[in-house]
């Protein structure tokens, strides 16, 4: 039995196709989110690579910011629940999740059964999210996927505001005009993201294992900064960017089993 989870975020669209609620047969990411061609393209990619179609799917569950825009989905489930489900599937020892996506950051507390017992989300502000890193990447002229490498070579961490992306951008420009090495600025940018995310994570009580998901978890510099701020080990989930879609596919499997 195949089930499909689709996670339409603000910055990207993700799909996971599961076989029998256990094996990932397709996982695709397109870097365009809700309101764009991203959702159609990511579905097309997933079906092309797997050789499957919608007709093969027992159930489809949508999550993410654009979850109500997927016509084919039989159910919409929030990204908090889907991330919890996906993480618990991948890392059953997880008790705290830090998820940083394109537009929001979340800290989720799980109980021993993998159920969400509390969660906290960022305010209506891009600081501490993937969008913040995108803005900084552009200002610094360093590609997103190279930022962790720069960070690893930093000799010190410069101060970058975590309150507001626009203010932080002007701070970074100021550092650049003062010839501060980009490595040190990037380490500061990552520390800024970490302080914002940790502000949410502290409220959960920080039970271990602490697991990171979301696109930003692919940035080792941010992971290091979060681990340093929390003084705790932080595990990066396998397939971090598709954890939400995986959770949705698992929920779809549960739904499909109910029908049988």
């Amino acid at each position, binding site marked *: 039995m195949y089930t499909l989870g689709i996670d339409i975020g603000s910055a990207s669209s993700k799909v996971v196709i599961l076989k029998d609620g256990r094996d990932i047969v397709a996982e695709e990411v397109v870097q365009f989110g809700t309101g764009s061609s991203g959702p159609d393209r990511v579905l097309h990619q997933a079906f092309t690579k797997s050789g499957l179609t919608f007709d093969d799917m027992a159930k489809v569950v949508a999550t993410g*910011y654009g979850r109500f825009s997927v016509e084919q989905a039989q159910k919409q489930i*929030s990204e*908090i629940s889907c991330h919890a489900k996906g993480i618990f599937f991948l890392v059953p020892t997880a008790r705290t999740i830090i998820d940083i996506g394109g537009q*929001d950051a979340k800290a989720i507390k799980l109980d021993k059964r993998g*159920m969400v017992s509390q*969660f906290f*989300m960022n305010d209506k502000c891009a600081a501490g999210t993937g969008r913040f890193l995108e803005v900084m990447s552009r200002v610094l002229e360093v590609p997103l996927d190279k930022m962790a490498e720069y960070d690893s070579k930093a000799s010190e961490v410069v101060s970058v505001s975590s309150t507001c992306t626009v203010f932080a951008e002007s701070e970074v420009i100021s550092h650049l005009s003062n010839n501060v090495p980009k490595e040190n600025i990037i380490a500061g940018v990552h520390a800024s993201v970490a302080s914002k995310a940790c502000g949410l994570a502290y409220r959960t009580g920080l039970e271990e294992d602490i697991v990171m998901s979301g696109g930003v978890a692919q940035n080792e510099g941010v992971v290091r900064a979060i681990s340093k701020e929390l003084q705790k080990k932080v595990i990066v989930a396998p397939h971090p960017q598709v954890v939400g879609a995986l959770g949705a596919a698992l929920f779809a499997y549960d739904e499909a089993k109910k029908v049988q």
Partner: protein
Amino acid sequence: MSKVETIVANFKAIASNPKKAIADAQAKTGKPAVGVLPVYTPEEIIYAAGALPVGCWGKATKTISKARTYLPAFACSIMQSIMEMELEGVYDDLKAVVVSSPCDTLKCMGQKWKGKCPVIQFVHPQNRGLASANTFLVEEYKLVRQRLEEALGVKITDEAINEAIEVYNENRQATRKFLEVAASYPQIITPVVRHAIMKSRFFMDKKDHTAAIKELTAELEAMPVEAWNGKKVILTGITAEPDEFLEILEEFGLAVVADDLAQESRQVRVDVPDGDEDPLMRLAKQWQNMYGCSLATDRDKKRIPMLVEMVEKYGADALIYCQMKFCDPEEFDYPLLYTQLENKDIRNLMIEIDQQANSLEQIRTRVQSFAEMM
């Protein structure tokens, strides 16, 4: 349309179009309108002056630009939209506006008032346990009375204030009874309807509101109670607006079975005590007796156990803290309440309330996640 539907539709029409509701009430009663800003005002004195007290609680999704000249960006959204509307002349038809001073922003609203009508500001004493606090508040209320008399050109007698107290106490009692009964009828008294009924108090003559709410309560009581398949929540905070937020609660099957909102239940929580003494002293004692509100100092913070007891009493599945953005008094209470709720394993969610919010998608995600947790 059933009788209940007709009454509810009338309440919704009033709450959604205050301007028309006030005009209708004035046409019916011939009374001039006097504005009352949040949160607590001795409306009885206004009513005794033969005027219609009308609530000024801001406006949802109002674009704020002119108000920025007079208020910092971190003033709450209710005050931002009131200031914006002052500058646009929205309140110029009012004969006066009465402003209390329970928070830092409201303290300055009288000084900054840009409307054309006179503004009457007064202060509630916060050291409320002392007898001298009542003496102080009586002096404040005397000034309110005197300035209202000047603004309206009338004499406000003790007898008229005592009669107004009776009208208001009856309304508070009828509203509290309605809220008790409504908790059993979430299919009819949805979060949006419940809010409209409470909000309409601000734009109706209280005698008319009392009559309508009594009629609705009687109609509800005659109906069978049906099982509720969704979850039950209690709201606490200053307001739970806009309606779109309440619609999200409905969308995910959450019924509001009780509230501790400053705009709603806190307005009817405490009656003015009976007695033969000076009616202004009776009104002062109502403030002394007020409890469970972040704006009325309470060293014992009884609001916290009060909310825990409310959750138990109504069999609520969770509590939602409607945190008015930038409201310091509410922000100070939240950590204390959060700790207690967590200790007692009571599900809870904090939602930031902002009248100027145009997109509620993040709130939708939070509420859906919360509903999925329960």
